[in-house]
């Protein structure tokens, strides 16, 4: 589904990604871990087309398409979704209308008809219940004045509605208490299916207690330095990243 080959990316002429190779197949859950500044968030943002990053080398294919040549909205319509680490506040645009526009755009790309207002509202409310969000949030401006946890839940809500083929979650667990973490994990687990892939970017192991990954990768210095199964995450939890990064140095 997703094939990353020798991906290099810069920001402000500083090299962040220095040759990433990764294969993600349908049905798989991958966790990308690593110390701060290792390039985890950069990787997630490059995959959704954030313009601040310059790709200097490498190739990314999503299904049969050259992902790096697609506009951010084309990637979204193709089925890629990123739950942002820092969701943006958009004053003046109500959450319900934002969700409506996003869903109808993605549906149109899949050849599905627009949802009428009633069906849409019902679907949104059902998903909100799933992430335990108060319906009042629908009528507030997107993320404006939401707490950190509310913003993360709003991201998961969007993910559940848009039903992406490839869901990327960038530090969605950071800043969440244990109850919120469970809600987010339940949302992600609900999305797991043989047709879908999920890539979790996280600093800590604790999210992986609730979303059990098939593969764990350690990113350091802009490269994947070790890959393994879920046990690798436990090892990292006990020993930190030092043993890996030092061994490499």
């Amino acid at each position, binding site marked *: 589904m997703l094939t990353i080959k020798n991906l290099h990316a810069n920001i402000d002429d500083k090299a962040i990604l220095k040759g990433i190779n990764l294969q993600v197949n349908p049905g798989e859950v991958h966790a990308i871990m690593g110390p701060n500044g290792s390039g985890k968030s950069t990787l997630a943002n490059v995959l959704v*087309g954030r313009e601040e990053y310059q790709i200097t080398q490498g190739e990314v294919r999503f299904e049969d398409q050259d992902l790096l040549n697609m506009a*951010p909205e084309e990637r979204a*319509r193709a089925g890629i979704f990123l739950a*942002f680490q820092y969701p943006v506040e*958009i004053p*003046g645009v*109500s959450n319900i209308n*934002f969700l409506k*526009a996003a869903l109808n*755009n993605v549906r149109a790309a899949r050849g599905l008809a627009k949802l009428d207002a009633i069906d849409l509202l019902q679907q949104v409310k059902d998903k909100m219940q799933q992430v335990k969000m108060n319906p009042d949030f629908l009528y507030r401006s997107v993320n404006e004045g939401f707490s950190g946890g509310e913003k993360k839940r709003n991201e998961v809500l969007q993910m559940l509605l848009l039903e992406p083929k490839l869901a990327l979650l960038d530090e969605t667990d950071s800043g969440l208490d244990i109850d919120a973490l469970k809600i987010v994990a339940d949302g992600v687990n609900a999305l797991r299916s043989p047709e879908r892939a999920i890539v979790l970017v996280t600093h800590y192991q604790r999210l992986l207690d609730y979303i059990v990954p098939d593969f764990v990768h350690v990113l350091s210095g802009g490269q994947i330095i070790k890959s393994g199964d879920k046990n690798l995450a436990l090892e990292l939890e006990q020993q930190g990243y030092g043993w890996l990064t030092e061994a490499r140095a």
Partner: protein
Amino acid sequence: MIMNTLPTMQQHATPFNLQNNPVPAGEQLWLQQIRQNALQHFVKHGFPTTRQEDWKYTKITPLAEQVYYLPTRTQVSAEQIAEHLIPNLDSYLLVFVNGQYQTELAELSGLPAGVILCELTEALTQQPALVQAHLTKIAATAKHGLSALNTAHMQTGYFLHVPANIKLTKPIQLIFLSTEQELPTTYQLRNLVIADTHSKLTLIENYIGIGSTNYWTNTLTEIHVEDHAQVEHFKLLQESQSAYHTGTLSVQQGAHSQLNSHSFALGGRLIRSDSDIVQTAEYVSSELNGLYLAKGKQHIDHHTSIDHAQAYGSSRELYKGIIDEQGRAVFNGRVLVRQDAQKINAAQTNKNLLLSEQAEIDTKPQLEIYADDVKCAHGATVGQLNASELFYLRSRGLNEQTARSILTFAFANELLEFVNQIQLRNYLRHCIIQQLAQDPTILEML
């Protein structure tokens, strides 16, 4: 035959002679005197020039150089007016077309007894003492040449008197429509409003231009807001793209009174809009909101002045501008706190969104504070669309143009949140979308 192609209007058209005072037959002496004084002032000082600080960024020489003609009689049908009314709004209505009052199009049924709503010239006949006691009593002739010119040449306008304790539940809609004309025409409109103590009213002045004629609207609206009265005033400028609009709102407020003024400057080649508010007593509240959209070669200038002459007053101003292409806008907000005006709370905000390289805004707060126990805040921002917000919308499948439209409209939308009247708010929303030339489907988003 050439004669047949000549419009009949042209044969009777009278050039607007700035320096000549066309006193209507039978006009009262006091008014003739007022006109005469104003004319002398104008003759002496002429049009404002960019050498004056208040006109530094707004050049009106085209007005001075153009020969304008006086309005000629235009007849329009109720059907022609219907399309310019605010849909589904239950309101009282007066209609002016090409500077002429349309008696038969007025809608005054249900007006509470004692309330007078009519053309200014009719009020001069019916209520001479009331008019004499209030006309020109707020608007300082000396402020700038255009006010003096208006006073010297005022042709028509509306008059409203709401007696004490009467609260109008329906708004008053005032349509000033300019249609396609053969010759450049000028409308010198004069409006007078007296809101007596404890009265309440809402005015919606809607200036609409269709066609491509060069015309010039010069208006002056004086509003007396007496003690405890509440006045809400909307000024919608949708003049044609070749029109000049210069207008002043002059308000005098009594104790515990409240003014909410909203300016939506959407259309016009050049707009200069002045709002001069004087708080003459204690515990006065004034709120001024404004939205201006300038694109093409439009020039939109707002000058506001709030004079806190007495203590315990408050004022709040929010003006937002969206400037695209080679549009240019000016905002100048003067807040004067006089020595006796202690415990004043004044806040002024001006935010601008520049959508092109050539777009320009000149913004200036002008605070003059002579009292020592006051709270005065002001802030001005100039910026572009937020890149993170744009990206966020695109990452959810919205194309770039739609994302830009949504964010641009969301910026303007804040001003609509102050509009409680739902029909008016919907109408304004449509007008703004149209002026921004945005995809109407974004309406579903907001």
